[in-house]
């Protein structure tokens, strides 16, 4: 692989043993994948920072790496609990200490402690810039909506890239690999504003198309563009795809020529695909849930406001909770709008930042059954925690909460 003088000098240890190792790992990875050189990145997003996921080995490695600082702006994925209200969630002290140790390592490295899976709602990423992002929904959003260029990195490869500001030049960093491989026609009567429907559509798409770059036509634009995240999160949960080109939305569409679409296979996605996914995740009877969960991927400010407006008369009984997960930024905006987080909590409505149930110590804090509008959450909660899940439309969940748990 070709390396420039700066990269050679890192590899030779002039910037210390840790950066040398980081660069070496990226070079070896690039060589194994056929990259010709390294390219500069402007941003990195690091996943795999929960103690539940990476354990003691991950904690130790991050501690070792934390003697060095990142070379480019970097953000990070959610952790195992809300940094302020962890005690109220029942998180044990020992677990708290371990998670904080990981976060402190990241902080020492200069990683922004954003603890959110929606860096695209927080960071300012320009189109056509090379970045190194982990977290599948964020990768798909960066490539398919923002028009940035990133492979689907693992948490560690994104962190190593952040340390040296480089990533191997292969895959989705190369224009030639961003051409469509199949055309997917979406049936027109599918609601583009319902998270569970969008997620199921994406999940089904990912199950059918395991690799390549699907070109999506007749996808109705949601009222709020960021809702596309549910579609992308569904795709990310069921496939290894890193880019889709959505007609009228994805910047990559502008570079397409008619010849790029010639002779492509074509398939349709319709309501039957969505119905199948709903039937896959249907373990929890309505009043048997421990938590009703919104926020995978993290909720935007608009979504939190919308949900809070709909549950203003809801008070949940003991043992039942509603979880809303979002970024620290959104929680502070909500507070600035006059909401009292403690009042919400006293009604069983837990507005949570910094965390995600998928990477939380759920068994320890005694969550065994979840109703959610997110297919990604349903997929991973069942797979990684073995708990019961039911996928349900957001509007239906909100309606039922009002019918069953209204305090008026």
């Amino acid at each position, binding site marked *: 692989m070709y390396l420039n003088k700066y990269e050679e000098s890192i590899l030779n240890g002039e910037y210390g043993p840790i950066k040398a190792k980081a660069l070496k790992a990226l070079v070896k*990875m690039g060589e194994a994948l056929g990259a010709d050189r390294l390219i500069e990145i402007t941003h990195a997003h690091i996943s795999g920072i929960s103690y539940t996921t*990476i354990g003691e*080995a991950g904690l*130790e*490695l991050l501690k070792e790496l934390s003697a060095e600082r990142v070379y480019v702006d970097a953000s990070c994925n959610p952790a195992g609990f809300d940094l302020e209200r962890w005690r109220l969630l029942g998180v044990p002290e020992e677990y708290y200490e371990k998670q904080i140790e990981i976060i402190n390592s990241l902080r020492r490295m200069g990683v922004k402690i954003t603890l959110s899976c929606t860096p695209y709602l927080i960071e300012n990423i320009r189109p056509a810039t090379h970045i190194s992002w982990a977290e599948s929904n964020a990768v798909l959003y960066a490539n398919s909506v923002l028009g940035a260029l990133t492979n689907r990195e693992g948490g*560690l*490869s994104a962190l190593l890239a952040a340390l040296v500001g480089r990533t191997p030049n292969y895959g989705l960093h190369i224009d030639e690999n961003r051409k469509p491989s199949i055309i997917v026609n979406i049936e027109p009567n599918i609601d583009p504003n319902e998270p569970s429907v969008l997620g199921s559509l994406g999940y089904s798409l990912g199950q059918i198309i395991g690799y390549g770059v699907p070109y999506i036509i007749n996808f109705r634009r949601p009222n709020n563009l960021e809702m596309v995240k549910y579609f992308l999160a569904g795709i990310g949960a069921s496939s290894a795809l890193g880019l889709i080109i959505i007609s009228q939305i994805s910047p990559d569409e502008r570079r397409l020529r008619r010849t790029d679409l010639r002779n492509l296979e074509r398939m349709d996605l319709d309501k039957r695909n969505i119905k199948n996914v709903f039937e896959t995740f249907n373990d929890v009877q309505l009043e048997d849930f421990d938590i009703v969960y919104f926020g995978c991927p993290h909720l935007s400010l608009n979504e939190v406001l919308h949900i809070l407006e709909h549950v203003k008369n809801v008070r949940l009984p003991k043992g039942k909770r509603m979880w809303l997960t979002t970024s620290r930024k959104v929680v502070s905006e909500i507070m600035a709008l006059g909401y009292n987080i403690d009042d919400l909590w006293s009604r069983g409505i837990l507005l949570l930042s910094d965390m995600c149930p998928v990477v939380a110590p759920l068994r320890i804090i005694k969550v065994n059954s979840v109703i959610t509008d997110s297919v990604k959450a349903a997929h991973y909660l069942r797979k990684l925690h073995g708990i019961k899940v039911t996928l349900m439309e957001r509007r239906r969940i909100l309606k039922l909460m009002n019918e069953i748990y209204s305090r008026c």
Partner: protein
Amino acid sequence: MGHLTFKCRPIVEGYAEGEALVFNQPISFLGDVDPVTGVIKADKEVKKVKDRILIFPHGKGSTVGSYVIYGLKRYNNKPKAIINLIADPVLVIGCVLADIPLVDKVSREFFEYVSTGDYVIVDANQGIISLCKRKSIR
């Protein structure tokens, strides 16, 4: 029967020799391998990876696997070398961080021929694997 030699692609350099531990299925380091005990559970077998030449077609599953490979080093359980048909990024990164010699693109013949307990020499500097069947050592 003497040594058989095979060409391979060196990825993480180094030299190692030892007893082979062979799996015919892809390995997910997160889930299949416990870094603290060094135990691997795959192909319905339970084995220790420490000081073995670990041989399997390719990795699969979570990217957290790199941390697990690093963990094997941390807990003094690392294999002496790893041989793959095709190495994936998770494994490459883990092996660089844990200083485990890694080679891939070795011929299918090698994979058909090698079995657990054989003596294997991995020269990941030159890209050469030598195989000595268990029977011929005795």
